[in-house]
């Protein structure tokens, strides 16, 4: 590891800070657009980009010993492995038993307390209609 600290020009800091603010704006802006299943992917991509900028410039990883960069990239890789393989499960369920198709049960009692809307935010029918075939055993 180098013994001298890298001196970053103020300009770089300001550019990165500006980019972070801009990307925050992007996050807010895309939240108003419905991209279906790409909503989460886009939100995570922007968040990852922002986190990387912070780590690389504000935390000086870019100028640090490259071994530390390897460790950082490895941790991202393992997180990627975990999420990808778990999604291979939750994204493809229901091949044999269709009732387990949705990993998140949209009929869960949790949602009873929330106003039900469709994907565009318009109110839909009352809970009673929605739950006509619901199993009540957990109450």
């Amino acid at each position: 590891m180098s013994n001298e600290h890298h001196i970053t020009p103020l300009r770089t800091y300001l550019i990165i800070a500006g980019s972070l603010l801009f990307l925050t704006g992007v996050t807010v802006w895309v939240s108003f657009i419905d991209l279906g299943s790409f909503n989460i992917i886009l939100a995570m991509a922007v968040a990852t980009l922002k986190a990387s900028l912070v780590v690389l410039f504000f935390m000086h990883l870019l100028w640090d010993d490259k071994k530390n960069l390897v460790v950082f990239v490895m941790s991202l890789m393992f997180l990627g492995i975990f999420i990808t393989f778990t999604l291979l499960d939750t994204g493809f369920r229901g091949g044999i038993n269709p009732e387990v198709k949705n990993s998140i049960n949209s009929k869960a009692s949790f949602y009873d307390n929330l106003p039900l809307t469709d994907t565009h935010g318009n109110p839909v029918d009352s809970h009673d209609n929605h739950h006509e075939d619901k199993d009540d055993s957990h109450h």
Partner: protein
Amino acid sequence: MSENQNINYLNHPKGIMSWLLTLDHKRIGLMYLFSGIIFFLIGGLLALGMRLELAAPGNDFVSNDTYNSMYTLHGAIMIFLFIIPAIPGALGNILLPLMVGAKDVAFPRLNLASFYIYSFGALFAIYTIVNGGVDTGWTFYTPYSTQSTSNVVPMTLGIFIIGFSSILTGLNFIATVHKMRVPGLTWYKLPLFVWALYGTSLVQITATPVLAITMVLLILERFLGIGIFDPALGGDPVLYQHFFWFYSHPAVYIMILPAFGIISEIIPVHSRKKVWGYKFIAYSTLSIAFIGFLVWGHHMFTSGQSVFSQIVFSFITYFVGIPTGVKIFSWILTMYKGQVSFTTPMIYALSFLFLFTIGGLTGIFLGAVALDIHLHDTYFVVAHFHYVMQGGTIIAFLAGLHHWWPKSFGKMYNQKIASLCALGVFIGFNGTFFPQFLLGLRGMPRRYATYSDQFSELHTYSTFWSTILGLSIFIAILNLMWSLRKNNKLDPGSNPWGALTMEWTHTSSPPHPHNFESDPVFTNGPYDYDKVIVEPTLKK
């Protein structure tokens, strides 16, 4: 030898505080060793208790609830308090700095902290035992673990804490291997045990945080009902299994990789031959460590996970067989045309080859989705992982213990008794667990205190041989302890087996408090039996 015998790490400095506050990796290793052996004893007694209950059908000895607690504690204690900390914490701590020619590990204070974090976590486990046990199985699967009224929280909290000890030890070892090697000791001249500990440490620091997260989520689920694993709240109980096995499958390699390392050390020494395929063994260690992260779903074939991911996980699981096979063949080829002597460590190492191969091959059965759906949660699985964990790791641990005992204490145990016990362990082990393969194939489910009459014959065999197994291990440990008494006639010398790794050639047995009396100079590769003649100091 000679006058240096008087000052060694065991007698200098003196006093109880010099042990409790020691920064010496060898003393910390011994503290891990003795606490590990105590938990091994507790876990072993629980196992014998279970076998006693299973000797005949019906609840003759304990109730169903007690039995549930017994198998949970047996699993959790053996894995989290004995196997995972024991080899890296005990043998790794004692040997790693000696093998790389360092005075200590990279961060000695952190090393002591790891031991105390482990002890603190162990207190929670002891509290759990005293307070009536925990009945979820060592895997703490939801939804039951969020509802059980037993001590789920103290036990998971204990495991959470012990995880930090594991991470810090891993970090310490990685830094030691990178930064503390003696000049000239390049990566390809490292003893294979060091490679194994290095691979283990990588898995420890990358996987263990996920276990910590899992345990925290489980505790939050119980106390606050956050609903991440509860379908009624929009969660997914199978997600718990993903979290748990993302750590716990790599943890299998945390347990077995150091065992591979021990075997890679013992076989060349006791065969007087250069290890065959050094780079193959070293790289297979790293590839097992990596592939181990991609196969966790094979524990979940009957959990309701998607067919697509079942196929993917099943396919990748077979890849583990490649590096593992590479190791087995390398060890066999190391012995080929060697001068094999049947010393106690070598008997254990040979048992390991036999038992671990059975354990590994039955793992391939279980990795096949179609067969696993039939065998899941039966005694076939129980037999399989005992062949790997006991037939593999614990036998390798015993091998290592007998191999490096004269190094650690400068004393030789009674070799006749030790070798007899090694045979007893081998026979008792097969007698106990081989019938369990048959029981599993016939449909005997795991985790039941009772069973129908058709299974009773095989269960009785299993129980009978388990007493031989338990007794053999007990006498083997006692025999080692007995050698520590003052008047020990047989002097093993500083290098009883005639090994070439630095911990034997460059320092006395037991070593100097600072490991080496002067700065060690690296002279020969760890397995250069074809170039260097070294005489065993142990006279028959």
